[in-house]
Structures are given as structure tokens and as C-alpha cells.
């Protein structure tokens, strides 16, 4: 069993962080430039988040299983959590099948430099939003 027992808590926590990222100008600009629609399908617990960069603003949608995504990423909630601390090497995780990416992986790799600043923002976000117990040292 993973570290997150509550589906609601994980969805609110990570969905909230994604919302937080969309108002960081340097990140938002690059996300919008990508035009990607990315569906994250997490397990243990099961949560679906869609990051839709195809419009004028970045939209984060909880539980959206309908929109046709450009890329779908599959991983456990624990792997996702560690990723946002910068503790998961994407290519290594894909090689080890800790993550599965369906769709154009190079487009995801293009986004990595854009989201790099998020690694520093994540622990701060957790502490400021009542999730300090999930901060990884």
C-alpha cells in the first residue's frame, strides 16, 4: 500500500498543486506553448487529472476520463509525489516501468525544462496548504 490512503486527499493535494503551477507565469507560458492535453492516471489511490494546455489558459480537470489526450501518463500516487520533489528521473522511471507514457514522449520531455522550477515550489506548497506531513526530506 502506498503513502496516500485517501483518494480525495491526493486529488485535492496534487490537483491543487497543478492549479498553483498554472499561475506561475514562466511555467504557464511554456505549458500553453506546448498545446498538449495530458491525462495523468494515478493508482493507489485511483485519481485522474487532466492538464489541458490547448486553449488560452491552462485548465486542470479532476476525474476527466473523456477528453482525448495527447499524452497519457500512468503511475502510482507515490511515484507522482516523489516526481514533484525532483526525486524521480523520468527516463529511468519509464525504463523501469514505474511510469508508462502513451503518446509522443518527446513532447513530454520538451516540458521537463519548463517544469523544473516546480520541484522547488512543491514542498513549499505542501507546507502552506496543510500537507506538511507529506514533505519528503
Amino acid at each position, binding site marked *: 500500500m502506498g503513502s496516500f490512503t485517501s483518494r480525495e486527499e491526493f486529488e485535492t493535494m496534487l490537483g491543487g498543486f497543478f492549479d498553483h503551477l498554472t499561475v506561475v507565469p514562466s511555467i504557464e507560458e511554456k505549458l500553453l506553448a506546448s498545446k498538449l492535453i495530458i491525462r495523468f492516471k494515478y493508482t493507489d489511490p485511483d485519481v485522474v487529472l487532466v492538464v489541458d494546455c490547448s486553449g488560452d489558459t491552462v485548465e486542470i480537470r479532476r476525474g476527466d476520463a473523456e477528453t482525448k489526450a495527447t499524452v497519457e501518463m500512468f503511475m502510482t500516487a507515490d511515484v507522482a509525489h516523489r516526481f514533484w520533489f525532483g526525486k524521480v528521473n523520468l527516463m*529511468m522511471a519509464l525504463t523501469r516501468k514505474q511510469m*508508462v507514457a*502513451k*503518446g509522443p*514522449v518527446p513532447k*513530454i*520531455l*520538451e516540458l521537463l*525544462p519548463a517544469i523544473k522550477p516546480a520541484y522547488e515550489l512543491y514542498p513549499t506548497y505542501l507546507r502552506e496548504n496543510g500537507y506538511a506531513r507529506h514533505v519528503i526530506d
Partner: protein
Amino acid sequence: MLPLFFEFHSPTKVVYGPGLIADLQAELSQIEARRYLLVSDRTLERLGLPARVAASLEDAGVEVVGSFLDVPENSEVSAVRACAEEAVAAGAEGLVALGGGSVIDTAKCADILLSEGGYLVDDYSGAGTLTRPLKPLIAIPTTAGTGSEVTQAAVILDEAGSVKLSFSDKFLLPTLAVLDPELTVSLPPRLTASTAMDALSHAVESYVSPQWSPMSEALAAGAARLIFVNLEAAVADGSDLEARGALLTAAAMAGIAFSHAMVGCVHGMAHAVGGLYHVAHGAANAILLPHGLAYNREVVGERLGGLAPFVSGLTSDEEQLDPADRVIAAIRNLAGRLNGAGVLATRLRDVGVPKEGLAAVAEATVRDGTSFYNPREVVAEEILPHLRNAY
């Protein structure tokens, strides 16, 4: 210092030998499949290679139930689909890919459809989308460059969206790679040079990658040594089997190295000039390798210097340089000598890249996925002077 974590997974059986293609019975008897579809291209057909290989396979006791020879220069989804349909119709139990990277990548993806059915783009593009082993794939390279015969990746053009799709999965690793230098003797000098420089860029970039491991490092260094010692001999005399064999081996070693350690801004710049100005990948890497290393020099100088014992062709003055600078000088010298021999361009201007396009190349390099794995952050304004140097 060792990396905190590394994984090394290279289950493809590699066999090497001049003329080995005529004697594969021992290897084929250990693979369950008995009925194979031969995948190749029309250029090799004109040289008579598919017929020769088919005869050898039959002699080895397996049945060649058909062939698919319409692989384009840059493989496309429609070719993969047609190849898979041919394999299914013929009742193939496995595939034999005879050719360069495009042929081998086509066979890898056709193997997905032969084994699993479904739709290539919607169901399988990406990384880690396969859940079980595919039917056996035997890869027989006729160029010494991409290393696709030992990697878990394939790149296929989706004509519908004009995008290159990548497929990466451990189940795409070929079952057997047959390295027979006799099959590469017809490769023209220009292609010999550019494909080998492509392999050298795989070796050097993986060596300095943040993703390096002691395993990838050893293979990368060994590949670099083989290329430095043998490339010019293979260019000068295409029938030199010793040199041809060394390049074929080096390409496979570098392929294993970079499929674990990744590549960086040299490939990023090469992808950019390839996408914007249709510069062939090997030729672009050959031009850009010393310039990408110069860009990374300040952050990986010590590491790059580790390759110094594996390079050659320096002047006595250059022998006194810092080890990292010796490596860069040796690569420049090698490319320069090949340029002098008329088989390799060393300037972007000579391959159709306009000077006013360099800023766009720099921007595209930053956006390329490889930039994330470059040892130095790729910043457009900072890499642009190096592109100007390459111009």
C-alpha cells in the same frame, strides 16, 4: 564516484563474425520461431543482400515465409502496417530485419502489430506500453551507426500528423543481433563516415551524460576507441573487413551505452537542424559534436577528459593540452581529415543551414527533449555562439 542508482538491461544476444550470416544455425536453433518474414529495403535488394540472407536462413533450417522490402528511407506508420499485414498473411512467427536503422525500427514496430494486433499509434506509441514479450526479432545491421539492433527504441514517422513518433520498451529489444561486417562493405564512403560519426556522438554524449553508469561508460569508451582507430581505414577501403567489423561493433556498443545513459545537446542541435533544414542526422552530429562538447566543457571537463586515453590523431602540441581539450581536438581532427577526404561536411553552411536560421536552431535545441539530459543547462543565448562557430 558511482551514481546513486543505475540499471543495466541488455538481453539482446550479439554475435559477430565476417561471413557469419552464412552460419546462423547455432543461434537460430535456440530461438523458438521457425517461420520468418524478412524485412529490408529496395536499395539492399538491388545489391542482392535480402536474397543472400534468405538463402542463408533457409540453410540454417528456418523458413523464410515472405519478405517486405518497401521500407522507406525514414520509416513511416503505413510501412509498418503493410509489413505487419504481410507477416500476418504469411503466418510468420518472427521477423528478420536486414538494413539500417529505418529497417530495424520498422521491424520492431511491425513486431508489435504482429504479436499484439491493434493500432500502432493509438495503442503503442510512447514508453512502456507493452506488457509482454513480442515474437522473436533478429536484427542484422548493414550500417554502423544507429545501434538500433541493440536498443529498445524505434522512431517512426506518422505521415498523418507529420510527426516522428517514438516507441520505447524493453520488449522491443531484438532477440538476436548479427554483426557481419561483410554486409557493410557496400556502404559508400560518405555514409560510412557520417554513420560512424553518429555512433561516435552516441558514445561521447553518453559518456558525459548525467545518466552515465560504469557499464555505459565502459561501452562508450570502448566504442570511441574502435571508431578512432578504424573509421578512416573503412572510408579509404570499404572492403577492409577488420575496420568494418570494428565500426559495426562500436555502433552496437555505443547503442547500448546511449540507450542507458541518453544523449544531450549535440543530438538536440542535430534534431533541430534536421527538423528545420532537413540535414541528415549523422552528418549533423558529425558537424556539431565538437561544438556541443565545447558548450559542455565547463561543467564536464573532468569527466570528458576520461575519454582522452581512447582518442587518437593529435599533433604533438595538442598532446600537451588538458585531457578534455585533447578529446575535443581529436574529434575536430578526425572530422577535419574526413572532410579533407571529401566524405564529411564540418560546417553547417555546407549542409544548407542559413546563418539567419541559427537563432531558431538554438531555440529548437532548448525545446528538444535531449536538453533535459544535457550536463549543462541548454540556454539559447549561450549555445548560439557555438552554433555560430559550427556555421
